């Protein structure tokens, strides 16, 4: 199949910290082999599970992030396992790993050792804090990275603790950044013929979520605060999360040209239902300057808008906003996402059969569309533990059946 990265092979040694990185490379067409410890990757112990039955072949975490990969098993810590891995590295272009910094070096499989075997090899290491620095050996977890990246402080209600997003995002985002780092290295390799080590920090990745906050401190000496349902960091307090009849919608008042058009459309909509009071009608939207207008004035506008939203359901508000070009989005859950006519029209969702479980599952599809190539539609489910052992060990490395069964007996494969 024509694909952008089809000539390249990736060995994915990673757990939940690097799995998304390797999957992005698979989406772009690379041949990705997941190397699991015998018994299965630790990712398989992460929930949720199909029917809530905790089992390594039922992990939805595994299903989501390992489609498009092949799976082989290998005990990396044994001498024979190391030799088998080195044979695989000779034929590979990229290794993605997310062990604690220094672990692979201690096994004799760090970047310097792999470079000796294959000078072209690119090793992508994804870790909580990076391979160097005073926190490199600190224990990470999603909430800890969110905290140390400066992002968590900015989210939540002012009268309670700062919050993280209730789904782990740090390692997935580090994976996206790792994919870029990896491809820059791959491009450099095409020019110079040399590989290199790509050192990705989840802390640095998540810190990007703080957007303009560093500028507020650096320029004005101002620390942005968490502000509940309001947008923090702007000169005036403006609401972003609004209650409606059956849920919540996201909408913000802007000044300037954009706000002039959007706010006016909304005011006309409110007026068309006979709900705009004299005050709302009197607002000169084009001249509304968020830097100089008083907070009280904004609060009055927001009161009128809030009353209007409360009378309508999410779907009504979204439909009206789409029709009028208003920057309003309903606050959706997966149920509404699955029903999105836009995603359906773009053929976003894909199906994969899970014959072993007797079910077919709808998955999020590719993150891009290309005019030249059909993005590799990941129509297959994620692999079972060691599903491709025969294909890779026998077919590619030329192991005999007895060699393979010996390695199995020793617990190496």
């Amino acid at each position, binding site marked *: 199949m024509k694909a*952008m990265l089809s000539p390249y092979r990736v060995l994915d040694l990673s757990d939940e910290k690097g799995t998304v990185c390797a999957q992005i490379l698979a989406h772009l067409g690379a041949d990705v082999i997941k190397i699991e410890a015998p018994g299965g990757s630790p990712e398989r112990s992460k929930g949720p599970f199909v029917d809530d039955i905790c089992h390594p072949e039922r992990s939805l975490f595994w299903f989501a992030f390992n489609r498009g990969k092949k799976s082989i098993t290998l005990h990396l810590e044994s001498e024979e396992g190391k030799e088998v891995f080195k044979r695989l590295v000779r034929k590979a272009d990229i290794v993605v790993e997310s062990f604690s910094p220094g672990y692979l070096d201690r096994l004799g499989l760090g*970047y310097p050792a792999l470079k000796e075997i294959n000078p072209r090899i690119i090793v992508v290491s994804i870790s909580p804090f990076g391979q160097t620095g005073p926190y490199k050996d600190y224990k990470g977890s999603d909430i800890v990275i969110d905290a140390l990246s400066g992002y968590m402080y900015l989210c939540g209600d002012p009268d309670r603790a700062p919050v993280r997003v209730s789904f782990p995002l740090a390692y997935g985002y580090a994976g996206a950044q790792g994919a870029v780092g990896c491809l820059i290295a791959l491009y450099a390799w095409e020019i110079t013929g040399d590989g290199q080590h790509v050192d990705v920090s989840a802390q640095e990745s998540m810190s990007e979520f703080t*957007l303009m906050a560093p500028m507020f401190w650096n320029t004005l000496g101002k620390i942005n605060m968490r502000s509940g349902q309001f947008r923090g960091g702007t000169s005036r307090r403006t609401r972003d999360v609004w209650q409606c009849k059956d849920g919540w919608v996201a909408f913000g008042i802007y000044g300037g040209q954009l706000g002039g058009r959007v706010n006016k459309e909304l005011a006309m909509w409110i007026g068309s239902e006979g709900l705009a009071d004299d005050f709302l009608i009197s607002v000169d939207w084009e001249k509304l300057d968020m830097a100089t207008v008083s907070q009280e004035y904004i609060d009055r506008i927001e009161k009128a808008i809030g009353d209007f939203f409360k009378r309508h359901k999410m779907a009504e508000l979204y439909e009206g906003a789409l029709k009028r070009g208003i920057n309003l989005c309903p606050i959706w859950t997966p149920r509404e996402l699955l029903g999105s006519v836009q995603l359906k029209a773009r053929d976003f969702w894909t199906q994969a059969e899970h014959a072993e479980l007797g079910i077919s599952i709808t998955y999020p599809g590719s993150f891009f569309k290309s005019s030249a190539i059909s993005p590799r539609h990941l129509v297959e489910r994620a692999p079972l533990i060691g599903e491709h052992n025969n294909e890779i060990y026998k077919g590619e490395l030329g192991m005999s059946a007895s060699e393979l069964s010996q390695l199995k007996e020793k617990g190496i494969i």
Partner: protein
Amino acid sequence: MLESVFKGINIAEFTIFGLGPVTGKLFSHHGATVVRVESALRPDPTRMWPPYAEGKPGLNRGTFWAHLNTGKRSVGLNLKHPKAASVTRRLIEWCDIIIENFTPGVMESWGLGYEELKKIKPDIILIRISNLGHTGPHSRQRGTGSTLQGLAGFTNLTGWPDRAPAFPYGAISDQYPPPLAAACAIAALLYRRRTGEGQYIDLSQLECSIPFLGPHILDYVVNGRISTRTGNRSPCAAPHGAYRCKGDDRWCTIAVFTEQEWDNFCQVIANPPWTKEPRFSSLQKRKENEDELDKLVEEWTLTKSAEEVMTLMQAAGVAAGVVENTKDMLSDPQLTHRDHFPKVNHPEIGTYVARNDAFRLSRTRGDIKRAPCLGEDNELIYKEQLGMSEEEFLNLVLEGVLE
């Protein structure tokens, strides 16, 4: 050391706000010539966003814009001028990659749709980033990441279960397209080297974001469950949260997953009797009695500074981290060691904080230079790169084509 991986790669940005510019920045940090095609008559609104240097507004004084556009070049071009087409044509012939993130339809209105671009430069790589993609019934809906993160599902997952969702600062769904778009663009360069073919890549902010919530989506698809915001709790850890520490609005996160980590945690807090009570004897029990557990943990953290809590816990192998505010973040020892926020000098802003990549390459480290003033590189790009004569250049300036 090879500093400039993308030396000789030319990129034109027809961009606005964050999605396009952050994508281009991943190339300008690694040696590509990345040109923002701008207009003083219709500038990128982000150029006028606060905070400004010394509080004084100005097109070249917005520090956030400068933060998002490090290492780039800027040319002024009035795309609505009838004579702009011939300049644009030469610019496109010069380009390897075009990055654009206007509302679908805007580039077409300038005669710069993919088919037109391909006629000028058959192997052009066009990267288009928009809210909802370039096809489909809602493709032309305008919007911002701050509301789109609600559509993608992030807002509903932020905050406390007994309250309204909290606004996730900034825009989470704005974060995903730039690295994914840059990855696509590099993959497309590699593809072009092999096949000689260019391509057009259409990225939707919504579709770039959803896969990162994969297991959350599948939980609904397979199990019919819609999990919602849980404050700081995790189904597989307790204690797990941000705990108040000594000082004003100081917090430290602690995450205890395994029984070994629980033992280590108890050791750090000097094994008070409550830690031995049956109600906390297993993860399941701790989850059942989590409200009381959190109160007891906080009684201890309140006696220490957030930094002390982190250091003591980490020394015992328990994941813990200070909830850093922006000031803490900018002086964080780890981020400082990694030079995550290098300082650069700008003629109008003075010294400001830029942002490094989230990765370090061992051989091709890259370089971070300041952002340009509007139209600063007109001579360099139009004359040196596109080969305009002095006379032609001056005429186009006088006619208001070049700004």
